[in-house]
C-alpha cells in the first residue's frame, strides 16, 4: 500500500508540468538528432577486429608499404569458337577499356593493371628485355608475340589472362573508398557501353563487392526501415484506434532510438554494419513499453469512461511501472551480458547502446509518455469498447484459449515443448560459422555471377599475404631470404584453394632465367647475395623501377608474398590460413639467418582471407559465451526481482527457446553465423524477455486474489496478453516488410526477427502458465512430485544427450578447459599504462609509487616490459627493463639516473618480490595467467556466480621452488577469465599470499585488470596496483625497449596521461 501511495505521489509530481516535460523530451530528441548528423559510418571488415590486432596492423602495413588494397576487377570473357584474348582485336579492346577506366573519376590511374599495362621479362641478345605485351599503336600489336611472352611469365597467368586464355581481367584500385559505390556505378556505365555481343563484361573483386553491398544495404535499409516503422505505427493505431496513442508511441520510440543513436554519435562511436539492427531492437523495446501503458490506460477508461484523464494516467503508470522496470532491467542485463562477453568492438558497442536504449525507453515511458497522454487527453478507445478486464474481447479470448492449453494440460504442453526444444537443439547443432560476403547478393545478381566467374577462370579474388621483414636495408635481397621466400611460396601453393603465389622471387628468377638462359619455372635463383642485388639493378636499368613496388619496398628490407585463393568462404579458407600461419610461426620466427648478416627474418600474415579468419575466429570464441552470459544475467535479474529462482528460470525459458529456434531455422536454411546474423540472438533477448516478465508479474498479482493459478491466468492474461500481442504483431509484421528486399541479408534479417517475435510470444503464452500451474500442482500433490521430477530429469538428460556434440559442449568447464581459457585470454600486443602503487606495512604506513609501464608482445616467446618510475621524485626515471624470451630465459636491465648508467642485472627467481612489492615477477609478467605446462590443474568447485574455482600445483619441485609456492587456488571470472582472487600456499594449510583483482574493465576488446591487490599474510604487508590511462596503441617505438635507450627520457605523450 505504501508502495502504491509512494508511486502515486511520484507520478503526480512527474506529471505536474506536462508541457515542460514534453518540451524537455523534444529538446533531448532534437539534441540527439543533431548528433546523428555527425554519425560516422564504418562498414569495413576491419572494424570488427581491434585496431592493434596483428592482422589489422599487418594489413595496414601492407597497404602503406606496397600500396596494395582491395581491388575492383573487370572481367572480359570473349565468346565464340576458339575465343582467345590473344587476337589483335581483343588486345586492342582491352587496351581501350583500360584507358577508358583510367579516365573514370576516383580510379587511381597509377593502380590500374591489365595485359595492356604490364610488361614481361625475357632474355635477349643484350641480356634482359623488359617489354610491354601490347604495343601503344593498335597496328603494331603482335598477338603471337604477346602470347609467347605471357606464357613465359607465370605471375601473369591466371591474373591478367585466364588460364584457358579466353578471358582477361582489368584490375584497379580507387582513391576514395567512401565513393566506392559511385565508382562502381561509373564502371558499370563504361562496360555497359561496350556494345560487343561477343564479349561479356562484368565487375567484381573484393572492393566492388564491398562497395556494391554497402550501397545496396543502405538503399534497401533507407527504403524499407521507414516502411517498417510506419507499419509498426499503423498497427499501433489499429490496436488503439486513436491518433493520440500513436503519437505517444512515436514519442517513446523516437526518444529511444534517436536518443541512443544520437548519444552514440556524440560519443564518437561509429555506425558499423551491424548497427543497422540497433534501431530495430530499440523500436521493439520502446513500442512494447508504450503499448503496455496505453493498453492499461484504455482498459481503465473503458471500465470507467468518467474517470479523469489524469487519474487514469497515474493509475496506469502506477500499475505498469513495476513490470516495465523489470522488463527494462532484464533486457538491459541481457544486452550487458552480450557486451561484456564480446571481444569484437562493434558487437560490444551494439550491446552497450542497446542497453542504453532500453534505459532510455524506460525513462521515456515513465516520464514523456504520461505527460504526452495528459497533453493529448486521450479519449477512450473504441477498440476497447466497454469491456472490462474480466470481459475479454476477441483477442483476449483467443489468448485465453491458447493459454488454457497450458493451464489444463501443463504436463502435455511442457512435454511437447521439451520435444520441440530437443528437435530444435538437434537441428541447431548443424549451425556453422561461415562467411562469404558475395553470398549476401542474390544468385541472380551480376556481381555474384562475376565473382564466381573470376574464381573459376582466374586465380581468384581472395588474397592471403605474407609481409616479410628484416631490420637491414636490402635484407630481403639476399640468397638466404630469397630461399625462405621461395620455400614459403611452395608451401602456400600446396595448400587447398591456393592457386598462385607471387613475390619478388618470381621476378628475380625470371631475370635469372633470362640472363642465364635457363628455364624460369623452378624459381631458381643464385645463392649469392650480390648477384640477387645486381638482378634488381639490372631490372631497374631495363624496366620501370616502380614495377616491383607491390613486391618489395624501396629499402629492400620488406617484401610481400601474395597468395590468391579461388574461394571466398571462411570455412574453406580457414585451414589454409591456419596452415600458413603455423608455417610462418615456425620458419619466420625472428631467428637469425646466417647469411643475412645476422638479420632476423620475420613474417606477418595479411590479406582479406587472413582478416576474415581473425574476424570469424573471434566471433566463434565469443558468440556462445555472450549468449550464455546474456541468458545468465536475465536469469539472475529475474530471480532477484521476483525473489525466486524458479521464476528466474521460467522467465528465461522463452528467450532461450527463441534463440535455439532461431539457430535451428538458420541451420535448416543454411544461414550461417556471421557477425550480422549473430545479432539475432541479441534481438531475441530484446524481444523475448518482455512478455514473460509482464505475464509473470500480472500472474503473481492475480494469484493473490484468485484461488488457483489457472484462475489467475484467466484474470491476468487478457489484459497483458493483448498488449503483448499487439506489440509482437506490430513488430512481427513490421519486420516482415524487410523480406521484400532484394538482398538475402535483409530478407533473412526481417524474416528471422519476425520469427523471433512470434516464437517468444507463443512460447511465453504456452509455457509460462504451464510452469506455474505445474508448480502449484506439485506443491499440492506430493505423489505427483517424484513422477514429474523423473520426467524432468529424463527430459534434461535427453536435451543434454542431443546437445552433447555441439560446439557449446566443447566448453564444458573442466579444469584444463578453464586453465586454457585463462591462458588464452587475449592480450594486446602493445600496452601502455600508468600504475599507482600503494605499499602499506603492518603499521599502516604507506609508500606511494607511480610508474609508466610499456609492454610489447611480439610472440608468446618474446615479451618486453619497461617500467619507468615517475614518482616519488627521488627515484624518478629509474627504469626497469625485462626482455622475457620464454624458454631462452630473461634479460633485465636497470637504469639509475643517479649513476647515469644502464646496468644489466641478473634475473632473479620468478617468485621473487617484484621491485619491493608483494607481487612476484611471475604475477606481473604472466599478467595473471597460468602456464599450462607448469601446473596440474583441478576444479575445486563447480562454477557459481563468482566464477570457477581452479587449483593449480606446480608439476615439479623445481618449478615450485622457482615460483615460491607449493600450490594456488584461484577464483576465475567466468566472463573475462581473469582471476578474481588467487591464494598462494606454502606448506601450511593457510595461504601466505593473496592476490585479488578488484576491478576489471574491457578496454578496446581486452579484459584488463585495472586494480590488483596483493597481501602478504605473514608479513601483514599489502600492495595495491591501480592501473590507469590504459591504452593499447598500434605500435610502440622499439627504441623504448632497447637497453641502450633507457637513459633517455620517455616522450611526454607516454609519460603523461593522454
Amino acid at each position, binding site marked *: 500500500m505504501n508502495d502504491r501511495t509512494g508511486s502515486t505521489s511520484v507520478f503526480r509530481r512527474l506529471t505536474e508540468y506536462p508541457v515542460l516535460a514534453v518540451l524537455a523530451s523534444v529538446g533531448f530528441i532534437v539534441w540527439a538528432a543533431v548528433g546523428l548528423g555527425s554519425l560516422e559510418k564504418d562498414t569495413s571488415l576491419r572494424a570488427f577486429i581491434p585496431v592493434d590486432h596483428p592482422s589489422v596492423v599487418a594489413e595496414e602495413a601492407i597497404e602503406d608499404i606496397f600500396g596494395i588494397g582491395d581491388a575492383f576487377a573487370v572481367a572480359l570473357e570473349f565468346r565464340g569458337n576458339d575465343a582467345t584474348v590473344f587476337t589483335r582485336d581483343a588486345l586492342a579492346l582491352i587496351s581501350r577499356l583500360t584507358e577508358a577506366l583510367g579516365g573514370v573519376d576516383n580510379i587511381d590511374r597509377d593502380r590500374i593493371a591489365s595485359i595492356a599495362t604490364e610488361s614481361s621479362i625475357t632474355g635477349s641478345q643484350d641480356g634482359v628485355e623488359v617489354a610491354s605485351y601490347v604495343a601503344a599503336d593498335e597496328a603494331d600489336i603482335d598477338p603471337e608475340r604477346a602470347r609467347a611472352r605471357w606464357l613465359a611469365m607465370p605471375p601473369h597467368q591466371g591474373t591478367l589472362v585466364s588460364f584457358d586464355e579466353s578471358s582477361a581481367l582489368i584490375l584497379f584500385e580507387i582513391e576514395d573508398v567512401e565513393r566506392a559505390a559511385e565508382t562502381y556505378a561509373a564502371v558499370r556505365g563504361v562496360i555497359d557501353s561496350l556494345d560487343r555481343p561477343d564479349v561479356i563484361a562484368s565487375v567484381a573483386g573484393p572492393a566492388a563487392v564491398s562497395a556494391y553491398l554497402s550501397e545496396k544495404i543502405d538503399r534497401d535499409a533507407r527504403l524499407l526501415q521507414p516502411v517498417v516503422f510506419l507499419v509498426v505505427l499503423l498497427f499501433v493505431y489499429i490496436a488503439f484506434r486513436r491518433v493520440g496513442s500513436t503519437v505517444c508511441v512515436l514519442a517513446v520510440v523516437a526518444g529511444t532510438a534517436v536518443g541512443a543513436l544520437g548519444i552514440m554519435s556524440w560519443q564518437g562511436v561509429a555506425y558499423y554494419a551491424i548497427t543497422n539492427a540497433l534501431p530495430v531492437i530499440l523500436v521493439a523495446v520502446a513500442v512494447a513499453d508504450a503499448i503496455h501503458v496505453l493498453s492499461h490506460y484504455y482498459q481503465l477508461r473503458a471500465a470507467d469512461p468518467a474517470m479523469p484523464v489524469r487519474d487514469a494516467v497515474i493509475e496506469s503508470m502506477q500499475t505498469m511501472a513495476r513490470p516495465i522496470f523489470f522488463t527494462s532491467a532484464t533486457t538491459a542485463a541481457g544486452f550487458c551480458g552480450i557486451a561484456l562477453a564480446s571481444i569484437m568492438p562493434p558487437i560490444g558497442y551494439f550491446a552497450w547502446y542497446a542497453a542504453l536504449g532500453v534505459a532510455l525507453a524506460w525513462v521515456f515511458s515513465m516520464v514523456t509518455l504520461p505527460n504526452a497522454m495528459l497533453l493529448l487527453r486521450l479519449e477512450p478507445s473504441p477498440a476497447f469498447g466497454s469491456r472490462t478486464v474480466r470481459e475479454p474481447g476477441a483477442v483476449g479470448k483467443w489468448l485465453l484459449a491458447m493459454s488454457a492449453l497450458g493451464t489444463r494440460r501443463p504436463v502435455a504442453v511442457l512435454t511437447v515443448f521439451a520435444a520441440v526444444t530437443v528437435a530444435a537443439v538437434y537441428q541447431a547443432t548443424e549451425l556453422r560459422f561461415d562467411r562469404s560476403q558475395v553470398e549476401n547478393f542474390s544468385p541472380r545478381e551480376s556481381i555474384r555471377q562475376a565473382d564466381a566467374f573470376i574464381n573459376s577462370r582466374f586465380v581468384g579474388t581472395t588474397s592471403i599475404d605474407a609481409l616479410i621483414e628484416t*631490420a*637491414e*636495408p636490402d635484407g630481403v635481397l639476399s640468397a638466404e631470404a630469397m630461399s625462405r621466400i621461395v620455400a614459403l611460396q611452395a608451401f602456400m601453393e600446396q595448400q587447398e584453394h591456393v592457386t598462385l603465389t607471387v613475390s619478388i622471387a618470381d621476378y628475380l628468377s625470371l631475370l635469372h632465367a633470362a640472363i642465364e638462359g635457363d628455364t624460369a619455372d623452378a624459381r631458381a635463383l643464385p645463392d649469392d647475395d650480390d648477384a640477387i642485388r645486381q638482378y634488381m639493378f639490372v631490372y631497374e636499368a631495363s624496366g620501370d623501377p616502380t614495377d616491383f613496388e607491390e613486391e618489395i619496398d624501396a629499402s629492400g628490407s620488406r617484401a610481400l608474398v601474395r597468395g590468391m585463393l579461388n574461394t571466398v568462404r571462411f570455412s574453406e579458407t580457414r585451414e589454409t590460413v591456419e596452415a600458413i600461419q603455423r608455417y610462418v610461426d615456425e620458419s619466420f620466427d625472428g631467428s*637469425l639467418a646466417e647469411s643475412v648478416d*645476422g638479420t632476423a627474418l620475420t613474417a606477418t600474415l595479411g590479406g582479406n582471407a587472413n582478416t576474415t579468419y581473425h574476424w570469424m575466429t573471434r566471433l566463434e570464441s565469443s558468440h556462445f559465451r555472450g549468449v550464455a552470459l546474456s541468458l545468465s544475467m536475465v536469469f539472475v535479474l529475474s530471480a532477484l526481482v521476483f525473489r525466486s529462482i524458479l521464476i528466474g528460470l521460467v522467465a528465461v525459458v522463452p528467450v532461450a527457446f527463441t534463440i535455439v529456434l532461431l539457430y535451428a531455422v538458420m541451420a535448416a536454411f543454411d544461414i550461417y553465423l556471421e557477425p550480422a546474423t549473430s545479432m539475432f540472438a541479441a534481438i531475441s533477448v530484446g524481444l523475448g524477455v518482455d512478455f514473460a516478465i509482464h505475464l509473470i508479474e500480472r500472474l503473481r498479482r492475480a494469484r493473490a486474489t484468485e484461488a488457483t493459478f489457472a484462475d489467475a491466468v484467466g484474470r491476468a492474461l487478457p489484459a497483458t496478453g493483448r498488449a503483448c500481442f499487439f506489440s509482437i504483431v506490430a513488430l512481427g509484421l513490421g519486420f516482415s516488410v524487410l523480406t521484400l528486399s532484394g538482398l538475402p541479408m535483409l530478407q533473412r534479417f526481417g524474416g528471422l526477427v519476425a520469427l523471433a517475435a512470434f516464437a517468444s510470444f507463443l512460447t511465453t503464452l504456452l509455457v509460462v502458465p504451464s510452469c506455474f500451474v505445474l508448480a502449484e500442482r506439485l506443491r499440492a500433490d506430493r505423489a505427483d512430485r517424484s513422477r514429474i521430477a523423473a520426467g524432468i530429469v529424463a527430459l534434461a538428460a535427453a536435451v543434454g544427450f542431443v546437445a552433447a556434440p555441439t560446439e557449446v559442449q566443447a566448453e564444458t568447464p573442466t579444469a584444463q578447459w578453464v586453465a586454457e581459457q585463462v591462458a588464452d585470454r587475449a592480450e594486446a600486443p602493445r600496452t601502455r599504462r600508468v600504475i599507482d602503487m600503494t*605499499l602499506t*606495512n603492518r603499521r599502516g*604506513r604507506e*609508500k*606511494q609509487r607511480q610508474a609508466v609501464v610499456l609492454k610489447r608482445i611480439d610472440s608468446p616467446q618474446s615479451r618486453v616490459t619497461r617500467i619507468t618510475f615517475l614518482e*616519488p*621524485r*627521488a*627515484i*624518478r*626515471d629509474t627504469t626497469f627493463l625485462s626482455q622475457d624470451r620464454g624458454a*631462452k*630465459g*630473461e*634479460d*633485465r636491465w636497470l637504469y639509475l639516473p*643517479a*649513476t*647515469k*648508467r644502464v*646496468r*644489466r*642485472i*641478473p*634475473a*632473479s*627467481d620468478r617468485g*621473487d*618480490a617484484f621491485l*619491493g*612489492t*608483494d607481487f612476484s615477477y611471475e604475477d606481473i609478467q604472466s599478467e595473471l595467467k597460468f602456464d599450462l605446462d607448469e601446473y596440474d590443474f583441478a576444479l575445486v568447485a563447480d562454477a557459481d556466480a563468482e566464477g570457477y574455482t581452479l587449483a593449480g600445483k606446480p608439476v615439479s619441485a623445481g618449478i615450485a621452488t622457482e615460483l615460491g609456492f607449493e600450490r594456488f587456488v584461484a577464483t576465475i571470472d567466468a566472463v573475462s577469465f581473469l582471476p578474481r582472487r588467487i591464494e598462494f600456499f606454502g606448506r601450511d594449510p593457510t595461504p601466505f599470499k593473496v592476490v585479488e583483482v578488484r576491478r576489471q574493465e574491457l578496454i578496446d576488446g581486452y579484459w584488463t585488470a585495472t586494480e590488483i591487490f596483493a597481501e602478504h599474510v605473514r*608479513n601483514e*604487508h599489502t600492495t595495491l596496483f591501480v592501473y590507469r590511462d590504459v591504452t593499447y596503441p598500434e605500435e610502440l617505438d622499439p*627504441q623504448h625497449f632497447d*637497453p*641502450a*635507450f633507457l637513459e*633517455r*627520457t620517455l616522450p*611526454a605523450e607516454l609519460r603523461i596521461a593522454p
Partner: protein
Amino acid sequence: MTRRSWRAGLAICGVVVAPLVHGAAVEDYRLSTSVAYAVAVDTGQRIEQALSVAGEASLRVSDALLWQVGARASFDTALRLRPNRDNERIFIHAGRFNRRVPVGSAGDIELREFYLEWQGGQNRARLGRQQIAWSGMDGLPTFSVNPSDYHDFILEDEARRRWTQWGIYLDLLLSGWRFEGAAFFDNSVHDVPDPGSWFEFTAPQFRFGFAVDDAANAVAIDTRLPDTIRDATYALRLSRRFGNAGVALVGLVGNEHEAVGTLETGTAVPTLRRSFPRRRLAALTVDTGLGPAVLRGEFVVHSNRVLNVRSGDTLATVELDTLTAGVGADLSLPLDVFANIQLLIDRIQDAPVGLVKPERNDLVTLTLRRAFFYDTLNLEFRWYHDPDIGDSFGQARVGYSFSDSLAVELHGAWFTGSFEGRFGQFADRDMLKLAIRYDF
C-alpha cells in the same frame, strides 16, 4: 667567493633563467640533503661533520631540447676529509672552469651538471658540463673517461665520485650499431686528498715514490696542467647487441688524470715538475646474462703509458704498455641475496727496476647485498683484496628507510695490509660514519 666566481654563478643563473623566461618548463627537479658524521675507530676523533645539499633540475626548452643543471654544496665543519680551501692544494688539480667555489671556510659549491641536450629520433647530443661512464665494472672501473674525486676514498656512488667535465657528446644509432663520441675540452684531473686530510695518499706509489716522511719531500713543486684545447680528451665507443650479449669497443685519447713527475736537482731547491701526459687506450667490454647471473668482461690496453721510475734521488719517466682486464659476475643467490664478484688484473709490461707503480696490481672484489622488509632495511658488505700485496679493504653498511624521503645509513670501513699498498696505507684510518638523507 671571488668576483670571478660570482660572475660565473651569475652567468650560469642567466643561462638557466633565460630559457625559463622564454617559456621553458621545469620538467623535473630534485633536492637532496644529507647530514654525515664520521669518527675514527682507533681514536674516536671526529673526522667529518658535514651537511651536503645536492640539487638538479631539467628545463624543457622545446620537444627536442633540454637543459640539465645540477649542483652540490658541501659544508664540513670537521674539515678532516678536505682540510684546505685555498685552491692551492699540492696534489689536486681541478680545471680552471671546473673548480669548487668556496663558501666561507667550511664549505664549497660544485657545479655538477650543466648541459644542453638535444634529442632527435634515435640520436642525441649534449653540450656542456657532463660525465660519461663506459666501464661496467663495479666500484673500480678498468678505465675512466672523466677524472675522479678521491676525498672520500671509495664511494659506492660512482657518479658522485666522478668529476663532470666540459665537452660535447654525441650518441647516434645506425643500423643497430650505437656510436658514441665525446670530446672534453677541460683540463681537470683527479682531485686527490690534501696533506693532512683523512684519506691523504701516503703510499709511495701515489707520491712519485716518496714516503710521507721522506726528506725528499722538501721540494719545490711545479705543475704543468694539460692545455684545455690542445690536450682535449677524445673518446669513441661503438657498441651493439648480438643476441644476448652486449659488446662495445672503446678508443680514447686524452691526458692522464694522475700526475707523473720528474725531479730536477740542479737548482738550490730540488723541483718536482709534475705533468699529465697524453694517454691512448683501447678497450673491449662484453656483458651477457645467463638467467640468475650477469657476466661482464673488460679488456683495456694502454699504449706507451707514461709512468714514473725512481732510482735514488732521480725521478724519471718511462713509456710502457699496460694491460688491464676485469671479469665479474652479478649473481642472484638464494634468499634474495645479491652478490657481485670481480677479478681485476692490472699488468705493466716490461716493467723496469724502480718503477713507482707496482708491476702487478690485481684485485679481487666481493659485494653482498640483501634487502629486508620490502627494501626498508638494506645490508651491504664489500670486501676488496689485493692478492699481490695482501692488503684489504672491508666495508659494511646498514641502511634504513623511514620513508621515500628519509633514510639513515651507518657504515664502517676498515683497512688492513702493508702501508705501501693501496688499502694498507689507510690501515690506521678505520672509520665509522652515520649519515641521514632527506629528499625533498
